[in-house]
């Protein structure tokens, strides 16, 4: 097992870290897209997130790790069970590697058992493994189209339906989609773009001291990862506790009418399509408030998370030289005052 670079040791890239943490506080925020320059630690951050997630309760013996508390969303096997014994399991963070084939993603007939014993058995795929956790796609813009279509469907319904090789299986597959990529390799299909709750743009830090610090830490980690992890253990534990507390506190965070109106006004000002932007903005702001230990959503929360929640929902205007993030910030400044 290779050592994973600790989340708290990532220098800068505050918006990316915040978006990931917000998605971890409330998985219902709906995914994070990280787009930007090469070598900015996009995949490092996503992989590091796994180390922060508090364990969750799951039904013993269930291969989809069903939530014993979720009555409506149990898999067929769990629905048939009389008693749901549960235990603690880690939240899965599953990689969807490039070049993956469809059978591995959605699940398929178990070849081994079929060929050697003549049994017809379902072998769950990556979507099943990612249930209740995170599905990470690096270079998401290079993903093959037919896999994108599959993902879109499952992400929309929260259920994976497999009809192949005479198998007919359905199982819950609710996961937070995390994608990263470099816009120079190509744009992302708008349908997929829309599936991500938050979208952040990362750039290589421009100031020298930050750049020096990034390289120093990376070098220290590579030369002696055990010592490096030990040095950051305290910070990691603190962040882990804070995340766990935020998840508990989430339902206690109030969303006052004023905040709802603010969010609606902002979305109207920007002309975002549909209601999804507004809902995500509110939900993300609530998760942020919880992470900050606040009891109610206010302007400060909305302001901080608005660019991430809205920038990928604006109508494109290729002649506008400013990025869409800047447009959101401009609208925020106009509406909320400087």
């Amino acid at each position, binding site marked *: 097992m290779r050592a994973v670079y600790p989340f708290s040791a990532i220098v800068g890239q505050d918006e990316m870290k915040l978006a990931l943490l917000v998605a971890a506080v409330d998985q219902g925020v709906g995914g994070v897209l990280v787009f930007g320059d090469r070598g900015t630690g996009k995949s490092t951050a996503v992989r590091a997130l796994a180390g922060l997630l508090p364990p969750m309760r799951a039904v013993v013996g269930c291969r989809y790790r069903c939530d014993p508390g979720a009555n409506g969303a149990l898999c067929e096997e769990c629905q048939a069970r009389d008693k749901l014994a549960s235990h603690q399991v880690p939240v899965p963070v599953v990689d969807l590697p490039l070049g993956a*084939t469809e059978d591995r993603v959605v699940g398929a007939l178990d070849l081994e058992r079929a060929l050697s014993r003549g049994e017809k058995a379902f072998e769950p795929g990556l979507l099943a493994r990612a249930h209740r956790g995170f599905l990470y796609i690096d270079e998401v813009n290079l993903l093959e189209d037919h896999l994108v279509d599959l993902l879109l469907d499952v992400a929309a319904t929260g259920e994976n339906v497999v009809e192949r090789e005479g198998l007919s299986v359905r199982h819950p597959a609710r996961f937070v989609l995390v994608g990263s990529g470099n*816009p120079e390799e190509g744009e992302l299909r708008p349908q997929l773009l829309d599936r991500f709750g938050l979208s952040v743009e990362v750039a290589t830090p421009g100031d020298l001291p930050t750049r020096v610090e990034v390289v120093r830490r990376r070098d220290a980690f590579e030369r002696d990862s055990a010592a490096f992890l030990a040095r950051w253990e305290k910070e990691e534990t603190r962040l882990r506790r804070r995340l766990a507390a935020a998840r508990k506190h989430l339902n206690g965070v109030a969303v006052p009418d004023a905040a709802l109106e603010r969010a609606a006004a902002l979305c109207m000002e920007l002309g975002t399509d549909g209601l999804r932007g507004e809902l995500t903005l509110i939900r993300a702001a609530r998760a942020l408030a919880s992470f900050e230990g606040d009891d109610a959503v206010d302007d400060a929360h909305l302001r901080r998370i608005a660019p991430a929640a809205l920038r990928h929902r604006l109508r494109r205007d290729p002649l506008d030289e400013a990025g869409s993030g800047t447009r959101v910030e401009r609208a925020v400044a106009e509406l909320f005052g400087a």
Partner: protein
Amino acid sequence: MTGDAPTGDAPAWRDASLAAALFAVDPAGLGGIALRARPGPVRERWLADLGRLLGFGLRKIPPNVPDGRLLGGLDLAATLATGRPVAERGLLAEADGGCLLLAMAERVQPGTAAILAAALDQAEVASERDGFGSRARARFGLVALDEGVEDERLPAALLDRLAFAPDLAEVSLRDGDGEGVATPAQIMEARACLDRGVGVPPDTVAALCAAAHALGVTSLRAPLLALRAARAAAALAGRDDATPDDVALAARLVLAPRATQLPSPAETDAADESEGQQETSSEAQSGQNEERDGTLEDRVLAATSAAIPQNLLASLQLQRDGRARTRGRAGASQVGGLKGRPAGARRGDPRAGRRLALVETLRAAAPWQRLRREAQPADAPRRIEVRRDDLRVTRFVQRARTCTIFAVDASGSAALQRLAEAKGAVERLLAESYVRRDQVALVAFRGRGAEILLPPTRSLVRAKRSLAALPGGGGTPLAAGLDAAALVAEAARRRGETPVIVVLTDGRANVARDGIADRARADGEALSSAKLLRARGTACLLIDIAPRPRREGAALAAALGARYLPLPQADAALLSRAVGEARDRTLRAS
């Protein structure tokens, strides 16, 4: 070790040899080498030297290697022989502890490049294919051979991860008759030395970062790779601690080829300043280093900058030359009955040129094995019984893709404003068409020749970057412009795309192909170029951008067989709509 330079001044060869030696010390740590050279004795000699230093052979992979071979999947022979699924290791996992040689790396697909890049980053390879999921160690170095003599380059995702990028394109065999820079025995010792750990001067990271910054190298992988190269250089010299010389050498080899700008004096000052700030903010670090701080940083920057002028200017020159050259691309055209992306499988006969989907076929056959075996005599050999009904073929989806090529008249006779509109239209088209994954390219002609400003791309970001500085003014070398557009169109056709050429001009040619101003000859040449385009059956649209359109535009359109659209008042929106319509018509016709 920089001492034994071969007779005659051949810094390119010496740097390439040094890069090979450092890479041999720490192949996985340094990621690899992107060697730019034409196939020939020079490259062979360099590869042979590298192989000797490494002490093991390089595993060659072709640029069109299928994902399945790279990542691993189902072992067909073993599966059929044993009657149970057997996994096959992929090339990346097999390369663990060794080196891969990627031939014709400039033609590698983005998907393949991304897989290689992920394996280089993770030092392991994750595969989810054909019924198997695996994670295997894959620590390897990659030698990418870049034969791109024209405007093709290695994918940036790979270049970013390979420490060195020596250029042997202009080196002849005579340049390399000096002794090698290292012996295999030295490499072995250096590896042991590196394992024990090599220290670096405390201000090394700051100096490397500052140098990278001053040279316009944005990726943070560059200083990190330079740092590792400095350690390898010290190890090669048998030192437990790197000296400023090692650091300077590493910076020269790693950073100089990545430079995008020459350090300006102002920038160097700014770097010093921020360095100073950092010094005061982190008081914990020893303050008496301040004096040496400056020197190391200066030395690194000086050593790197000294290597740049020829490097940067030469490569820029090379690119320009390559663009102006009107010669067909090297490499076979990739035409085959099986194009497009695989999109699942369906029942069917794998003859008639369709490709068998092996795993899906086995899956279809699997449930029946017991029944079918029982029907066989008891002493029949145990093997998988596959019936015709089980056969599955891979389905490929081929979208009708277009490559829209703008040939823009940037001469003095076409108003400068036209350029802005053309730029706007290109960006708009890209933004609107990215769902369809269409490509857009831009050729500009002005002065004495034509230039491919934007090779076919579907990246809005790239387009914006290359369009930002589009100069205007000068004569109208119309024939050269049409020829360049035809060249891009041919390349697109070979990739299986449908090219559409959009010419924005007033049609008043006044510069001939050889760059001499001669209106009559220029006109004749333009018309013959146009006829050639028409003969190839390339769809064209001519937009006459003259304020008062005259007959030249219409005549050129007729020669091109193009739709003629006089648009004296066109703005970007109108333009992109017209082009969109032309493209759709072409698609329907094809």
